[in-house]
């Protein structure tokens, strides 16, 4: 047992690739899938004389995100040059924002089972992404590489960076924050925010301190985590490590922990943080961005009810857990429509969060009235038919009617003779059951379901088996 209680101080830095038609500062297509260096031009290859022209859509989307995060939108935002040499950075400076970002001083309220947690948003700004380096060697890593190939297709694509205040105290809230932010970004149409594809990436800063203190101790930075669960696990591990270091009288050193997403279980690589001077200065090739008031107000009207608010609203009807799963899974709008169509709220939530997700259907493609009919009749439809119905529920013109016709047998007059036949065929099991081995109930039900080829209503069968044995 430790003498002092410790608390964690966690801050997040998230990068989201915007889903614009073209890149941030040139007219090259912004998208995956083409051959290396085919989506390039003099601007994103940094040829002599090329100049950046900002993407209006990217600026609007960043403002929209800022509004969703309750940020102040700058009257005047300035792009800066961040100078450093690296092969994926062809100008040797990245155009980013520094002390005058588009959005600042916001917050995202994260609902948790124990109440709301407000996480401050320091800033959200717009910048350009780097190219992709491919290290040519057996291992694919920098170490031992004989050459580096650069694919500039991604170079200059718009990237939003969101930085939080160090307001988060535990891994679970960090994870919920990230899920909620991801859902917000997706709903606003800003990005696919797919972790596997790298269109959403995040770094986590972690430090610990005696509970109740307001000091900020040395932090470590966790990089390259490509799942929310891995992040939560990494944070917990890092908190435990730092606490151990302090309790053993040691000092936590400022360092970066690089995770290898391909090998989740292996410990992260550590590197010392090199203090780098980026020599930021205002980008003279661009004029300041001065978003007109009317534009900001129009964008504000395009921001609907946000995921966090919906979790809170739906948790009044369902459990917090169900509400959270529905909203962060992008299922709550369909859920509402299905409930409006006459389905039981809890039942609808269960179906959506489990079988529906497993069926892999796009919620936006579903006719909620038809799905509502299915969910309402769920107990009466054989499992196999129900699953098939869900799988097809996103198809155009889908109708629940044919599946509703396959209603299960729930008529006791039809079932009793079958049950009696099963009992007569298994006298020793009947004897054991009557002797107190009630676990055998499932055996009898199973036999009856088999005899009826799955068309019997299991609840009725249960009831009748018990009555006839009793």
């Amino acid at each position, binding site marked *: 047992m430790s003498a002092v209680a410790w608390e964690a101080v966690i801050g997040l830095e998230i990068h989201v690739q915007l889903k614009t038609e073209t890149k941030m500062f040139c007219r090259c297509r912004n998208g995956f899938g083409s051959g290396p260096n085919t989506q390039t031009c*003099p601007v994103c*290859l*940094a*040829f*002599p*004389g*090329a*100049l*950046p*022209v*900002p993407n209006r859509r990217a600026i609007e989307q960043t403002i929209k995100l800022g509004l969703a995060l309750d940020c102040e939108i700058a009257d005047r935002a300035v792009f800066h*040059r961040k*100078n450093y*040499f*690296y*092969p994926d950075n*062809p*100008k*040797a*400076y990245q155009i980013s924002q520094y002390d005058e970002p588009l959005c600042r001083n916001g917050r995202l309220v994260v609902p948790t089972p124990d109440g709301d947690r407000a996480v401050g948003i320091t800033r959200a700004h717009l910048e350009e992404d780097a190219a992709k380096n491919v290290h040519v060697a057996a291992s694919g890593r920098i170490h031992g590489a004989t050459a*580096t190939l*650069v694919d500039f297709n991604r170079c200059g694509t718009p990237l939003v960076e969101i930085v939080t205040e160090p307001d988060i105290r535990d891994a679970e809230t960090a994870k919920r924050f990230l899920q909620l932010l991801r859902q917000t970004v997706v709903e606003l149409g800003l990005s696919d925010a797919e972790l596997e594809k790298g269109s959403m990436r995040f770094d986590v800063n972690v430090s610990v301190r005696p509970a109740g203190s307001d000091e900020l101790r040395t932090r470590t930075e966790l990089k390259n985590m490509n799942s929310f669960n891995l992040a939560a696990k990494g944070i917990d591990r890092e908190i435990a490590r730092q606490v151990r270091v302090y309790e053993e009288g040691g000092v936590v050193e400022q360092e970066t922990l690089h995770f290898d997403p391909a090998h989740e279980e292996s410990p992260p690589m550590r590197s010392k943080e090199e203090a780098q*001077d980026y*020599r*930021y*200065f205002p980008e*003279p*090739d*661009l*004029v300041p961005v001065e978003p007109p008031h009317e534009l900001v107000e129009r964008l504000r009207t395009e921001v609907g009810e946000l995921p966090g608010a919906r979790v809170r609203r739906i948790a009044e009807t369902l459990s917090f857990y169900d509400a959270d799963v529905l909203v962060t899974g992008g299922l709550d709008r369909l859920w509402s429509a299905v409930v409006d169509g006459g389905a039981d709220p809890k039942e609808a939530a269960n179906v959506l969060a489990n079988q529906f997700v497993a069926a892999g259907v796009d919620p936006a493609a579903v006719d909620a009235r038809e799905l509502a009919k299915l969910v309402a009749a769920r107990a009466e439809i054989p499992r196999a038919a129900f699953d098939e119905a869900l799988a097809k529920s996103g198809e155009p013109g889908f109708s629940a009617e044919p599946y509703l016709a396959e209603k299960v047998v729930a008529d006791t007059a039809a079932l009793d003779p079958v049950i009696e036949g099963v009992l007569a065929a298994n006298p020793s099991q009947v004897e054991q059951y009557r002797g107190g081995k009630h676990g055998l109930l499932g055996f009898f039900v199973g036999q009856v379901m088999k005899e009826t080829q799955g068309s019997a209503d299991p609840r009725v069968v249960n009831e009748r088996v018990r009555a006839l044995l009793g």
Partner: protein
Amino acid sequence: MLDTLRLTAEDADRLLREKEVSSAELFAAYRDAIDQRDDELHAFLHVCDDPGGEGLPLAVKDVIGTKGIPTTAGSKILESYVPVYDATVVAKAKARGLKVLGKTNTDEFAMGSSTENSAFGPSRNPWDPSRVPGGSGGGSAAAVSGGLAPWALGSDTGGSIKQPAALCGQVGLRPTYGTVSRYGVVAFASSLDQVGPVAKTVRDCAWLYSVISGRDANDSTTVDVPEVELPSSEDLKGVRIGVPKEMNDADGIEPGVRDAVRRAVDVAAGLGAAVAECSLPRSVDYGVACYYLIAPAEASANLARYDGVRYGLREDGDDFRAMVMRTRDAGFGDEPKRRIMLGAYALSAGYYEAYYGTAQKVRTVIKREHEELFERFDVLVSPTSPTVAFPIGAKADDPLAMYMNDVLTIPSCMAGLPGLNIPCGLSEGLPVGLQLIGPQLGENTLFRTAHALERALAFDFVPERLR
């Protein structure tokens, strides 16, 4: 036989329209002149074949990108570079029928005042080949002055159009910042760089300016430009001319230069201009210091892209860092290296506020000081260069002395204002340049004033030894 030394672009255009000469003959005449005199002058780094079509030839400073034509910026690091696209100014010129005649010599990355910093050797002044033609756009000014081109494009950061035009007895305009696109122009200092024309007459200069200016979707810093008026008026009635005393009496202004400029101001008064003395104290005191923080700071970032990865020179190294360092060490000459170091230092953590930050504030002061004067004046005048053309080698080992060449051209550049040089007389047999500075977008006023003065002064722009 065409006399390319005397032929203005306007004359040449008339000959073409009246079919007295074909476009091919005209192009060939300039090629012949280049063959005859450029071994001595070294105004060109690259000469083009006639691309065909109808129109006038145009010489283009080698910092301006030309599709399919080498563009070296006077640097070894770009010796092998051939652009895949035209700079907007070149595209605009081509759209009006102009044909690229060749690429003119420049100090490396336009850093210098004599072309002695060109990696490919200096250009020479047509008035006296033992002297510099000025810089950085010495090649363009020497080409026009030596009859090797009817006109040329230059680029000006702190005086690189105006000062060579002065030293070679030509007309050169540095336009209002933002009126001419920088797209495709090898960047030196983005907040100061402007492309502009060098020509034999004010009317030619105005005409070429009308061709290249205008808002460009590829350059966010460009603005809408008022319609250019070709000047014809020969008086200066109603024109208010200010004579900033610090810029006309500064230490280092040669007596011959001062006298020629004074005579020109008297001529202006005689043409009806209202002339009065005024003052730009801080602009002159702090202009050069401020410029040598801001321009190198921007240059340190603009020149960082020359890393050997995608184009230009590459020196191999054991890793990326070594490759970049060896490439840049081999590819850049002393002056770019000096300015990269100056600039990187001025932007460093801990020094930014003291150097770059302060320079930006001073720049605002310089702008305001000019704005106040333009409430009372239409045009400000001074010498363009404190001296006439100096001998090659005279200042090559003294960077500070070289920097002081631009003491009179820098302040208005820092303020983003247009400045025009016209020749106004001779001192020791060499041309003296008169600098006219206008308010933002005041090009038409500059053209009008300069044209009237040009007529009255009747300076012969053909170098004496070539007449």
